[in-house]
């Protein structure tokens, strides 16, 4: 059998195993090892099974993953999410759709503490959904805005997805984090604009909330000060070259832990749960990473990525044309695959094409992150939708998906703007101090 044929058979086998609900990391290890055994030698396959788990976990640069996850979990315990929502509410809650806009802003803020979309959606859902129900918001708008706002978690740094992209493509984690900042703010603005437009069109969707006195507004704003401090120190520290990414994560985790202790929210049980949750998430990410590293030599041996790259460059499509094809492919995949799975499966295949086309790999990381976000909220398996469903149990799935549609369109607009103006992603990493 030719390497290409073995490669295609391997990918088909991988898809079958995935649809049979085998964990992604195990399925990739199984198919990758079998493929390497066929195309190279059984010894090489056994070596990768024995050596790669340790050698791809015991890496200094990877400490950023558990440390930032820990920071997000401490932030969830310390009530920073609630403070953020209160601050946003105080200033815009009295406007039409103001509670929904405040939810978007608080989600964006929480995303700067947490690298996970699910954590953002859960935390902000618990805080803002009861408020929106109290003011009789349309359930579609209320649930849609939480599901969509939660996805900002993987675009605004720190982001677990961007870390994994950096590890797969050997790009700098710090540069990818900085590249996510402005597109994250752009998407936040687009989400707020979506809320405003929706409520201008159908005022009953988002009745105004209570107007607060100026003194109360500033008090709420002061409540968000610890959040501002943590974000300035961590992300600002990376930008200014004061901290490495690992150091920013460790200092950030320490500061959010101190804040949670100071607020008397972090008892023994809460600490134990935060640690268990962090270790569990870390193990989940690393099983996938280990699987991806066992799988990728097989993919390279099959020569499918390089063949595909030369075919696509032979077609002499424009970069924008290729990106449009990739966008369409990702949107279809996003309906069936979970975000991490989609990334570890596609990036090794797509990355050579991106390099051959001369597309900036950091920019492409941001592109992938936004497209994955869209997958997180597309039917039938958008994971954020299930998270929101968990918080808003009496709202039918169909209504949640209907509520998401306008925000999904806003994401398409965001991708379009980024294609037209790639500098939005690249200006910060390119001006980063060293």
């Amino acid at each position, binding site marked *: 059998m030719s390497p290409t044929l073995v490669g295609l058979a391997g990918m088909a086998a991988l898809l079958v195993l995935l649809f049979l609900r085998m964990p*992604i990391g195990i399925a990739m290890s199984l198919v990758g090892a079998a493929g390497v055994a066929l195309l190279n030698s059984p010894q090489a396959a056994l070596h990768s099974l024995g050596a790669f788990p340790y050698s791809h976990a015991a890496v200094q640069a990877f400490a950023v993953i558990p440390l930032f996850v820990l920071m997000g979990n401490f932030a969830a315990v310390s009530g920073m999410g609630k403070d953020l929502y209160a601050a946003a509410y105080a200033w815009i809650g009295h406007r039409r759709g103001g509670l929904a806009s405040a939810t978007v802003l608080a989600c964006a803020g929480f995303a700067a503490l947490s690298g996970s979309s699910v954590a953002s959606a859960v935390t902000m859902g618990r805080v803002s959904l009861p408020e929106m129900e109290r003011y009789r918001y349309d359930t579609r708008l209320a649930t849609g805005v939480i599901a969509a706002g939660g996805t900002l978690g993987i675009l605004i740094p720190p982001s677990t997805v961007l870390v994994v992209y950096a590890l797969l493509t050997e790009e700098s984690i710090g540069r990818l984090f900085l590249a996510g900042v402005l597109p994250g703010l752009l998407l936040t603005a687009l989400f707020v604009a979506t809320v405003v437009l929706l409520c201008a069109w159908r005022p009953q969707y988002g009745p105004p909330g209570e107007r607060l006195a100026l003194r109360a507004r500033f008090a709420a704003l002061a409540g968000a000060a610890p959040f501002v401090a943590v974000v300035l120190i961590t992300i600002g520290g990376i930008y200014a070259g004061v901290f490495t990414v690992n150091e920013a994560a460790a200092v950030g985790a320490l500061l959010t832990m101190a804040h949670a202790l100071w607020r008397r929210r972090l008892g023994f049980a809460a600490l134990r749960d935060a640690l268990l949750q962090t270790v569990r998430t870390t193990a989940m990410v690393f099983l996938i990473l280990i699987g991806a590293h066992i799988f990728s030599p097989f993919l390279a041996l099959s020569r499918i990525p390089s063949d595909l790259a030369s075919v696509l460059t032979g077609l002499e499509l424009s970069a924008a044309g290729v990106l449009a094809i990739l966008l369409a492919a990702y949107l279809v995949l996003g309906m069936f695959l979970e975000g991490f799975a989609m990334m570890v499966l596609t990036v090794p295949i797509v990355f050579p094409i991106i390099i051959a086309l001369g597309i900036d790999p950091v920019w492409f990381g941001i592109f992938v992150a936004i497209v994955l976000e869209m997958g997180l909220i597309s039917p039938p398996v958008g994971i954020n939708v299930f998270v929101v469903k968990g918080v808003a149990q009496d709202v039918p799935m169909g209504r949640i998906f209907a509520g998401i549609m306008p925000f999904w369109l806003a994401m398409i607009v965001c991708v379009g703007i980024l294609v037209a103006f790639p500098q939005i992603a690249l200006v910060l990493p390119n001006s980063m101090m060293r």
Partner: protein
Amino acid sequence: MFDRLLRALALCGGAVLLGLMGLVAFDVLMRYVLRLPFLGAYEMTELAMALIVFLGLPYCAATGGHVSVDVLGELLERPALRWTGPLVNLAGAALLALMAWQAALFALGSRDRGEATNMLRIETWPFELLTAASMALFALVLVREAWRRR
């Protein structure tokens, strides 16, 4: 009992993580305040990462934390297709058992070569052996899962 063991292991991983947080933050402090970089921090981070990941892996598996694709979930729960669940779990267990065995061989090999970290000369084989033990526990979790879903 087994679940409590896995949870205890994961908590040990959590304790290592807290230590790692302190270590990295302390390293920053040393560098900026005392201008004394702590030379062992790099390799201690490496070893801590191995501990955190592999102490947590079986716990993550036992609590259903590993990501899988659930599109066909309802279809696969039908009586005619119920057998796929245990089969997939057993296939995973077989692979993990193989990985545990290979990782143990890898650990013994590096003990024989006397491999250790650069600065502190900490031998790496116990950490590699932990990888093998973690894979073996993971395999046991999957076997139990196959038994439960039979």
